[in-house]
């Protein structure tokens, strides 16, 4: 196969992989963003100052000589997004469609603006995830905030700085290139004249349109970005003052609650609401299969639901015992299953020929269970209708998509819907959809009053979507000297993220097979990357042991990616890999990989005591280019490790015939204080490389590192996640 053809296949595969991922995220086409406020209105809202705008979408490529130009029209064109406003008091307001969910981007994005605008971070205020005020954004997922929104805001801020320098140059009649911006002030070193940003723009009402890509400050020269700035509004969180969606109220607000069906895919056949309707102030709404109530108090709403007598009819649905067989069976044949994008295949060389030249081959199957996100703030929404317009506050990762969901559901133009996302009590990929928003809006419409609806934990663990379960078959061939020669990897249902191997293998066939999922499924932190790494890095470990080679040495022998090698080597060095041999009571494992611009290697130590498995130490080396906030990054990495422990060791959704069997925290175990190992983090700060996101990839190598450590100690190879929901299985 020619190089060109490989490259083409590679590109197509990647495109398809991205398309599938975007589908996973429910990606929607870019809408023409309607900037609804005209210039006078905008300044009425903000006071005077300078508003920096850009054409919708990415900034245009460099045009020689082009600079930010003033827009003389009173009405801004529809395709213009307002990104940054500098007020007459020096307050910098930045507009971004990204949502803060605990990943600390309110701070890290502010740092990047402060850096490029050369202004104190205390003067910056971010307006986030408000479909009326912020430019369109596809959503907060895929570790895209840092690489994409971060660089967008840097460009906007750098352009704004340039606008200010131009203004000062015009005022002083000097060459702009000679002026210096620092600490919110522009100075002319020749004349020692200086002017603060507020003084410079006092009395102005300017709209500046950015037309070119400005040069950005390289990470080596960062002063504000790249430093461990504390969370900007941290005090509001420790004092209990921050208002999450679930804490908000509106005048006259009612509490909503939904009657959940008896099983998935059930139809409502009858409803007797007479008893519930007798409760004072209770409004019962039935609309198709939707049944909900609204009441002035939460407890009355709950009581009303308990007084509804409903009959449901539900179809027979697969059981958990037949899950993996069902997934494989339902994916057989081209474009079966519920995946509109169909399968994606990557091929290189010939696996058949590769296997023929292999001295040893290995054929194994790995599985992963459905798991739940369990965001501590459940799905919540507060909906209010006013003169046919709908405003919804809700914790979602995709405010613009939820806006469109609402517009469709109520058959109104999306301009009539405003979705606002208060900084939210976590999501982990679980809050892409607008379920609670739709429910609250439906009830509010019927009640004629604002309605707040907060899902219960049981609803979260039943009616939210899950991380897909999956089956992964791996067939490999290796030469006696440890060189990989063949690799076949078939993923059924769990997804294509990080499905490709980073190891050098001349003959590969890698395929993602969509399937019919018995349960509602969707994105979860890292998408399928944890599953695909579990299978791949577990299999690599099996091959190393089969050959009698050290698992790290075997990996490095087949690996030339320098960034991945660097994290493997850093992790091994800091962990002391190979210093102590695994014993029956203590095992050491290693795994690694690369995804979404992040490179990770994880070493795990497990202690075994009478069938009990405890992860006692985790060391992770991580590299994501130039680090924007090292303290925030450590928090994300450490958190990903702790959360990853649950999916690795014991988390699993149990189900039968369209019902969840463990929808309570007493039954669905998530990591607690006592589960936490000693965690060490080694960050490789590559100031020479673009910054990548870090919300997901730090999680992907944990489960295989633990499974490999368990094998090293016990000789028991665990190929299913969770590994030890009921302790170590007997050898056999």
């Amino acid at each position, binding site marked *: 196969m020619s190089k060109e053809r490989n490259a083409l296949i590679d590109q197509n595969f990647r495109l398809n992989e991205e398309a599938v991922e975007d589908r996973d995220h429910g990606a929607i086409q870019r809408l023409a963003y309607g900037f609804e406020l005209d210039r006078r209105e905008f300044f009425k809202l903000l006071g005077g100052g300078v508003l920096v705008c850009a054409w919708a979408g990415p900034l245009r490529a460099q045009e020689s000589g082009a600079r930010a130009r003033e827009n003389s029209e009173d009405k801004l064109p529809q395709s213009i997004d307002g990104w940054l406003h500098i007020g007459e008091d020096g307050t910098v307001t930045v507009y971004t469609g990204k949502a803060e969910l605990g990943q600390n981007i309110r701070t890290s994005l502010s740092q990047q603006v402060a850096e490029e605008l050369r202004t104190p971070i205390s003067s910056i205020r971010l307006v986030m995830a408000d479909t009326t005020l912020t430019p369109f954004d596809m959503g907060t997922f895929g570790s895209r905030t840092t690489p994409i929104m971060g660089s967008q805001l840097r460009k906007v801020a750098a352009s704004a700085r340039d606008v200010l320098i131009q203004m000062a140059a015009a005022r002083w009649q000097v060459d702009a290139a000679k002026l210096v911006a620092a600490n919110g002030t522009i100075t002319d070193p020749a004349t020692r004249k200086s002017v603060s940003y507020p003084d410079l723009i006092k009395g102005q009402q300017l709209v500046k349109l950015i037309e070119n890509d400005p040069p950005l400050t390289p990470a080596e020269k960062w002063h504000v970005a790249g430093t461990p700035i504390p969370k900007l509004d941290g005090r509001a969180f420790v004092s209990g003052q921050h208002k999450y969606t679930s804490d908000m109220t509106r005048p006259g607000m009612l509490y909503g609650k939904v009657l959940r069906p008896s099983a998935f895919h059930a139809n409502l056949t009858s409803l007797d609401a007479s008893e519930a309707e007798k409760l004072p102030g209770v409004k019962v709404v039935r609309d198709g299969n939707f049944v909900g109530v609204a009441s002035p108090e939460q407890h009355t709403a709950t009581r009303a639901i308990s007084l509804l007598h409903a009959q449901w009819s539900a179809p027979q649905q697969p059981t958990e015992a037949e899950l993996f067989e069902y997934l494989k069976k339902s994916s057989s044949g081209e474009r079966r299953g519920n995946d509109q994008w169909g399968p994606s295949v990557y091929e290189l060389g010939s696996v058949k020929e590769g296997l023929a030249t292999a001295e040893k081959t290995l054929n194994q199957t790995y599985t992963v269970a459905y798991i739940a996100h369990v965001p501590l703030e459940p799905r919540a929404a507060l909906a209010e209708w006013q003169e046919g317009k709908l405003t919804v506050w809700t914790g979602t990762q995709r405010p613009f998509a939820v806006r469109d969901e609402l517009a469709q559901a109520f058959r109104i133009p999306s301009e009539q819907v405003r979705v606002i996302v208060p900084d939210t009590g976590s999501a982990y990929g679980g809050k892409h959809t607008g379920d609670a928003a739709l429910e609250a809006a439906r009830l509010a419409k019927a009640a004629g009053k604002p309605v707040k609806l907060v899902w219960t934990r049981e609803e979260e663990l039943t009616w939210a979507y899950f991380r897909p379960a999956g089956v992964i078959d791996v067939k490999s061939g290796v030469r006696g000297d440890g060189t990989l020669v063949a690799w076949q990897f078939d993923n059924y249902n769990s997804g294509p993220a990080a499905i490709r191997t980073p190891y050098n293998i001349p003959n590969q066939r890698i395929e993602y097979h969509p399937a019919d999922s018995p349960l509602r499924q969707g994105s979860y932190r890292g998408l399928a990357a944890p599953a695909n790494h579990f299978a791949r890095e577990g299999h690599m470990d099996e091959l190393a042991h089969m050959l009698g080679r050290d698992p790290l040495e075997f990996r490095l022998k087949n690996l030339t990616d320098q960034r991945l090698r660097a994290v493997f080597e850093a992790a091994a060095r800091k962990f002391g890999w190979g210093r102590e041999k695994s014993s029956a009571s203590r095992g050491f494992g290693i795994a690694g990989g690369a995804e979404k611009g992040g490179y990770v290697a994880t070493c795990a130590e497990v202690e075994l005591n009478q069938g009990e498995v405890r992860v006692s130490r985790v060391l992770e080396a991580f590299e994501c280019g130039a680090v924007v906030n090292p303290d925030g990054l450590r928090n994300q990495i450490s958190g990903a490790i702790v*959360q990853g422990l649950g999916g690795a060791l014991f988390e699993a959704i149990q189900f039968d015939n369209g019902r969840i069997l463990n929808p309570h925290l007493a039954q669905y175990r998530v990591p607690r204080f006592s589960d936490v190992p000693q965690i060490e983090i080694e960050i490789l700060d590559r100031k020479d490389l673009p910054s990548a996101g870090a919300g997901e990839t730090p999680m992907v190598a944990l489960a295989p590192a633990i499974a490999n450590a368990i094998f090293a100690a016990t000789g028991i190879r665990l190929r299913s996640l969770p590994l030890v929901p009921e302790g170590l299985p007997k050898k056999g």
Partner: protein
Amino acid sequence: MPITLLVNGAERRVEAPSDQPLLYVLREQLDLTGTKYGCGEGQCGACTVLVDGRPVRSCRTPVSAAAGKKITTIEGLEQDGKLHPVQQAFLDAEAFQCGYCTPAMIVAAAALLNENPSPSEQEIMRRMEGNLCRCGTYPRIVAAVRQASSVARKP
């Protein structure tokens, strides 16, 4: 029924069924929303408040059982604009991510330090086991509680 509660040093009169969980009275009637709903089954600890200095799960505590007792919520820890040492330690260690579990973590830790001013790491972990942080910020929380233990005062 009318019930008188002593919340954060003030007498508050509320109207609620006697079996209504304290959590909803605090949040809906008194607008003390720092205390959170997390599971309603006493498993996550997000609803932790102090009743007569002891941490309780307000989602499982009938409002009538708290009547006449001293109730302290996260809003009552800060005094004269000065954060409680545990709050300050959480802020300094940035012992949170999304922050949803944080108020209850702080309330639980304040109660622990009130009882035992210098707990070991093991004791902190054992006593806080009922409080969930889904973002996995546990190591920083333990560090913050240890930091606060040297300067803690009574809540």
